[in-house]
């Protein structure tokens, strides 16, 4: 792999991602919670913005995935690191459900959690430390737990 262009690509992608999270205001936990609050739909207080963020993001990425399928490899690596497992198993559903509880409690998912370091609100370091610890604990769960097949992504 060509080292400098590879790292520059990671940097460019990170900058655009962070810019997108700020511009869309998904760095605001309350705005995210106002999307997740479906009880406010009837009263007209619901904020559908999050759907207007993720929709265009998926469309742009969809085009990129199509373009990528015409090539054997990305520009700066030998192959696409496509997630290998296709299994829908307990591990996936349990993980998504636990994440959903934490997200609903806080309005913070990993991207905004890290972006918030740019203008840190009180308590964000505690959340980040807990998120890191949670991820570390999750990494200690055996790969076979709740899985039809163990995932070995590179």
């Amino acid at each position, binding site marked *: 792999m060509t080292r400098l262009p590879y790292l520059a690509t990671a940097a460019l992608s990170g900058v655009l991602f962070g*810019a997108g999270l700020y511009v869309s205001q998904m760095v605001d936990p309350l705005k995210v919670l106002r999307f997740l609050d479906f009880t406010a739909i009837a009263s007209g207080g619901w904020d559908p913005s999050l759907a207007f963020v993720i929709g265009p993001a998926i469309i742009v990425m969809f085009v990129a995935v199509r373009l990528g399928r015409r090539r054997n490899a990305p520009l700066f690596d030998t192959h696409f690191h496509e997630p290998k497992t296709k299994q829908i198993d307990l591990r996936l559903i349990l993980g998504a459900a636990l994440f959903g509880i934490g997200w609903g409690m806080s309005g913070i998912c990993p991207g905004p959690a890290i972006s918030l370091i740019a203008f840190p609100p009180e308590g964000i370091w505690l959340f980040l430390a807990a998120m890191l610890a949670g991820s570390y604990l999750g990494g200690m769960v055996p790969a076979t737990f709740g899985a039809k097949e163990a995932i070995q992504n590179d």
Partner: protein
Amino acid sequence: MESFSPLSAAIGGSLIGLAAAILWLGNGRIAGISGIFGNLLPATHSALWRAIFLVALIAGAWVTAHLFPQLGVGGVKTATLVPPPAGWNIPMPVWLIAAGLLVGFGTRIGNGCTSGHGVCGLARLSLRSLVAVAVFFGVAILTVTVTGIV
């Protein structure tokens, strides 16, 4: 609906999509923040690009907040976290630690978050990601309903 902001949402979303597209077509990597973050440790050969991506993520938010402060939180508005539901008598730090642990643990064993499963997985038409997205959105909506946190 006073806070609804479809234009800035769509522009921001397109930037996020572009970020994911560049990382995919350039480096063949999924722009899933939980995965990039979670695989920082142990520091393997891929830790460098992951660290650079995350520092750039913070820089991107910081720079745009200074260029366009009028957009809100991080600009003219101070960023704040949302306190636990009134009447539950749970201290804020305990609430934040519990939420952070659940987000970190859940995304690790479920192999993805809003970006990895939500943006990239759905764009790859992954059925696995579709299930994950349905579950975490459904559970998050349920959690907000039960806690009445908003």
